């Protein structure tokens, strides 16, 4: 009996150890990665509101926290093992990043988004201290982790693309901005102006999109129950207005196909407060 207990305990210890150290999702370091990424590295194209928001913190962030964090991370990083080093883009292999640029840009129909993606990769530093590549190389666990970065490795393009969290944030912001611009410029959303308390009628619509940007199924109102509640006629009106906007603006075929995994499901929040109060 004792032997049996010992065998069982040993076996469980092995399984637990394998689970903790072997499986990546048990120890997530995503938050630390996101913290390290300085916002000022994200260059956003000609977009208005985001540009305005991003520009302001530039001088502040450059001076203070992010730069301090960067060197810390370098110190902590162990030297790359030889096998991985062979995959790293060395200075004489500077052609590689250019290739990436070409890969992203061919979406000529979506110049705003495609043009921004390559700008983020710090061209000034063609050395191996590319934060995005380093993180991908040093942290092998990320390869198996089903997070945003993983989704961005578009296998349909043959070559594996190594994309940093900066890319992710930039591309995410670009998609957010592109969809917002598309809805505004095409005058798809009629705000429920004049309704009592119209400012507070915030509606979230969940959409599923096909790779060619078409709506899959019917877009859904998150608070659908509220639409049919007595006394919520204004909300129903606002929700129907938001649904009309999403349908009218479809298809969203301007979104970059190589980032489909990122925008296959979009939550679009229609907030009339700013639109009404100006």
């Amino acid at each position, binding site marked *: 009996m004792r032997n049996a207990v010992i065998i069982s305990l040993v076996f469980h210890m092995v399984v637990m150890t394998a689970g903790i150290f072997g499986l990546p999702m048990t120890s997530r370091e995503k938050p630390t990665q996101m913290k390290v990424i300085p916002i000022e590295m994200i260059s956003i194209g000609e977009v208005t509101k985001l540009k305005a928001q991003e520009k302001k913190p530039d001088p502040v962030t450059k001076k203070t926290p992010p730069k301090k964090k960067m060197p810390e991370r370098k110190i902590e990083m162990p030297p790359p093992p030889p096998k991985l080093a062979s995959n790293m883009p060395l200075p004489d292999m500077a052609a590689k990043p250019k290739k990436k640029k070409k890969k992203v840009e061919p979406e000529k129909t979506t110049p705003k988004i495609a043009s921004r993606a390559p700008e983020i990769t710090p061209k000034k530093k063609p050395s191996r201290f590319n934060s995005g590549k380093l993180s991908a190389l040093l942290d092998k666990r990320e390869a198996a982790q089903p997070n945003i970065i993983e989704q961005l490795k578009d296998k349909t393009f043959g070559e594996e693309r190594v994309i940093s969290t900066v890319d992710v944030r930039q591309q995410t912001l670009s998609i957010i901005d592109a969809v917002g611009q598309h809805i505004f410029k095409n005058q798809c959303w009629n705000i429920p102006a004049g309704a009592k308390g119209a400012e507070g009628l915030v509606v979230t619509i969940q959409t599923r999109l096909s790779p060619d940007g078409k709506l899959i199924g019917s877009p859904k109102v998150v608070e659908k129950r509220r639409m049919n509640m007595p006394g919520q006629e*204004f909300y129903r009106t606002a929700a129907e207005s938001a649904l009309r906007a999403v349908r009218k603006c479809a298809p969203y075929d301007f979104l970059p196909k190589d980032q489909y995994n990122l925008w296959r499901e979009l939550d679009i929040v229609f907030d009339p407060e700013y639109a009404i109060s100006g």
Partner: protein
Amino acid sequence: MRLFKILRLVTAGFTLSALLAALLVTFAVTMPAEARIVVDVNRGHADPLPIAITDLVGSESDIISGGSVKNYGQRIALVIKANLTRSGLFHSVDSEAFIRSGTVEGNLRNPNFNNWKAIGAHALMNGSISLQEDGRLKVEFRLWDVLGANQMTGLRYFTSPKNWRRIAHLISDAIYKRMTGESGYFDTRVVYISESGIATKRVKRLAIMDQDGHNHTFLTNGKNLVLTPRFSPTAQEITYLSYHNDDPRVYLYNIDSGKQEILGDFPGMTFAPRFSPDGNKVIMSQAYKGNSDIYVMELRTRKIKQLTRHTAIDTSPSYSPDSRYVTFNSDRGGSQQIYVMESSGKNIKRISFGKGRYSTPVWSPRGDLIAFTRQYQGKFYIGVMRPDGSGERLLSESFLDEGPTWSPNGRVIMFFRQQPYDNKGRGGETQLWTVDLTGYNERQVITPLDASDPAWSPLIR
């Protein structure tokens, strides 16, 4: 035997580890939910919603007084188009652009949404009209969401052919309510003072019409001066002021019966009588010994209670929709401004603090706003502010804009506008205008003669 036990333990261990692995996998699968992108849209447009309104389908061979049933269907559609367009919230798609395909009956129940989408319509109204054996008209309509490809509402009415215009207003109200979430205001009437003659000998008559200017009727003959008509919020009843032998009297006039009664003879001058929201009281200002204050009268008992006591001029009282508060106009602060007090007359607070003079405050039936007239630097404005005085917005501006009255849904304001006189003394015409809360949709209401001091009715029941 031992070996067997060990095997059992190993099997149990595998089962446990499999369970653990399953748990971890489940945990991992939930991770990608964080990747969902949230797009915040906070800029939009306030354009009219494109709606296609088709003629109601009816028989050409069925003839009733005034034309064929088909003709009635066309006329009803025209009135609906005019109503919705005038609201500023809808844009009627030109019928020339309609794509006709399929059978008439089939289109009524299963419209080809792609056809309507192709011409830019977001909503579609279609329907039919037919003559019943008892001589009444059966009118039915359906409202469709073109982009969502579903029916939003559908209603049926039976009525005498002479009421066809009211049916058009009722359908307009139903569409408006379904699309905006708010009650409509098309099945309503407006009383106002019709004016004619030269400035020194002006004839003023009480007149009534539908909100779109149709079905116009004079209620008084013009022998006596009439002023400040106001609708009861609960019945088709009007209160107004009339001078009889130079004595001002407050009258009560029932529109349906035509019956008129004197509400009372008041000592001194009486101004601006207005109903309470429940229709049981009339609030007014009264000048006595040179001082004007606010009074309220119970209609059943005819008991009068004084609400304000101040040496200043207090006028133009108006109840809040819940009857708890009264807004009025006073110069007790040195200039004409708007005040709010409890309906008992206590806790008087000034709410307007802008430059110029504020007058004629009227509480919205929705309760969220107070409309007023503002006079500043030689111009007049119609504006709105919240009951606490915040959020002031000016909606109209002219040489002379005055006398705001709310539509029953609290979304449109009617007022009168006087044109300026030129050097030769010409001009000075007075007209009725409407403006919605956005301030962008300003329209004139056509009247046969000059018009002033409008009062909007509640929805006709």
